[in-house]
């Protein structure tokens, strides 16, 4: 009678089969290997116009970002610097992510208005603004996975278990843990806390 949960029973027969049109409507994800991309294409030139119309108010005409809104281009070679600039060009490992995110979530405030060809064109333009393709480039479902993303090899799976647990699974020090203690940094000096 006590126990964390109900026994895993046979199927209850609840819900109803999803119809193909329904799955098509909601399953818009694109995988790194291009699976999920619809048929279509778009040029850098068309992308430039579309980006200017739909995106530039926040992300800038050259995808350089406006104020606090995200910057989508630039930052190459900064990942090991003091303040890395992470953009589609400098950081994103897969082009599929750009297509998928622009298609599902942008423009901010008016998501899911873009047609597939428009998304191809905008993604082509973002690649161009990152100097990853030429100005005459056309992106399509067919050449999609040929695009090389600079930081594709820049990620490793979580290795905290191997790297950090050996350091931090340990007997805690209780007395005489250090000689002296100095204050090295003060928040009120920086003074960025919002008013309450």
């Amino acid at each position: 009678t006590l126990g964390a949960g109900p026994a895993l029973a046979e199927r209850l027969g609840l819900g109803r089969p999803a119809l193909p049109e329904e799955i098509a409507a909601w399953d818009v994800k694109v995988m790194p290997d291009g699976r999920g991309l619809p048929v279509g294409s778009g040029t850098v030139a068309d992308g430039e116009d579309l980006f200017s119309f739909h995106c530039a108010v926040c992300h800038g005409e050259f995808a350089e970002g406006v104020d606090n809104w995200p910057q989508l281009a630039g930052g190459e070679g900064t990942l090991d610097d003091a303040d890395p600039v992470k953009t589609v060009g400098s950081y994103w490992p897969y082009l599929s992510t750009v297509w998928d995110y622009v298609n599902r979530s942008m423009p901010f405030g008016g998501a899911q208005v873009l047609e597939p060809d428009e998304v191809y064109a905008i993604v082509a333009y973002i690649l161009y603004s990152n100097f990853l393709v030429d100005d005459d480039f056309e992106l399509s479902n067919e050449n999609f996975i040929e695009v090389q993303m600079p930081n594709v090899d820049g990620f490793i799976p979580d290795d905290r278990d191997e790297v950090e647990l050996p350091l931090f699974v340990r007997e805690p020090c209780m007395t005489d843990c250090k000689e002296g203690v100095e204050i090295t940094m003060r928040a009120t000096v920086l003074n960025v806390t919002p008013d309450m």
Partner: protein
Amino acid sequence: KAGLATGGALAAGGAAAQEPDPLITEVQHWAQGFGEGVDATPYGLPIDYESDVVRRNVEWLTADVISSINFTPIHALDGTITPQGCAFERHHSGAIDLPKEDYRLMINGLVDTPLVFTYWDLERFPRENHVYFCECAANTGMEWAGAQLNGAQFTHGMIHNMEYTGVPLRTLLNEAGIRTEGKWIFVEGADASSNGRSIPLDKALDDCLVAFKANGEALRKEHGYPVRLVVPGWEGNLWVKWLRRIEVTDGPVESREETSKYTDTLANGISRKWTWVMDAKSVVTSPSPQSPITHGPGPLVITGLAWSGRGAIQRVDVSIDGGKTWQVARLAQPGQPMALTRFYLDIEWDGSEMLLQSRAMDSSGYVQPTKNELRDVRGLNSIYHNNGIQTWWVKANGEAENVEVS
């Protein structure tokens, strides 16, 4: 307002009052007339005097308030349950208004039968109840470079802890039937960001919940009404709100939220991905910058919260000298897996300044490291997963400041 004394002004420590307190000797209006009747507040709010115990956001953190975050007032709370009304919010496209009638949940992908559920279908599956913390991976992220924000609400307030009621995700996946090629799931919300995240099937089949109640009542709009995913011990971004679709896949989708964001760039420019588990962490919530000592020397309650995504909190130590010496704190209740634990250290404060720290230990044996120990491993440019030991510099006047120490 009547009253001889305000906070802490009455002499403590057995000192005698000079003259009788009129709050006692004179009959007060609340002891004579009526208070509010039982029809006054069908659903109540905190009393006006507590109007400072609210969620707060930090304007310069994000471009706007729609894709943004606010913070739980942990400096003013006690116990472990977070009331929904002041539990932090993180949205990527705002908190949407989605009636139960209009709610649909799709399970598709590598399943025997793709399915669509209504809200009421979900209420027909066997349910579970669990208390879990939900911490944003970015909690304390602003502190990577050094002490920045002056208040536990801002440094550690991207966390809440509620009792969830929901259907095990495994039950729903079982209903659709997972095909052998299925190794991951991809979960999405109904809001405009849709906020998709990939989760390994092992975790999905282990302890995830498709939840519709929190602290007994329907989820609040800002926490995903009517249905959110609960992913115990893992970063809050995975706890998809307004849960719309679960797809069984053969690999991770590598969505924007698991590549551009929620990855952790090390000093050499290489980034960790799939850093889902929240490391053991703790913070002293009082005294703290927003909760100074107002009563002078003598008995002082030091209290705080501890938690771990790897299991239950087993011990919390507190230091008042910046980590030179530590005392074992008292846990209010034995730690529960992936839930907040409240700790107390009751001291006789001598009135001299303190460098207050707390250090959590979990059932895996992990001991919360210092911020510098984390920086030694991860470099200076991380954002997420800052579980380093926090220091509050409590001054002789009782005020406290967020600092870092050697």
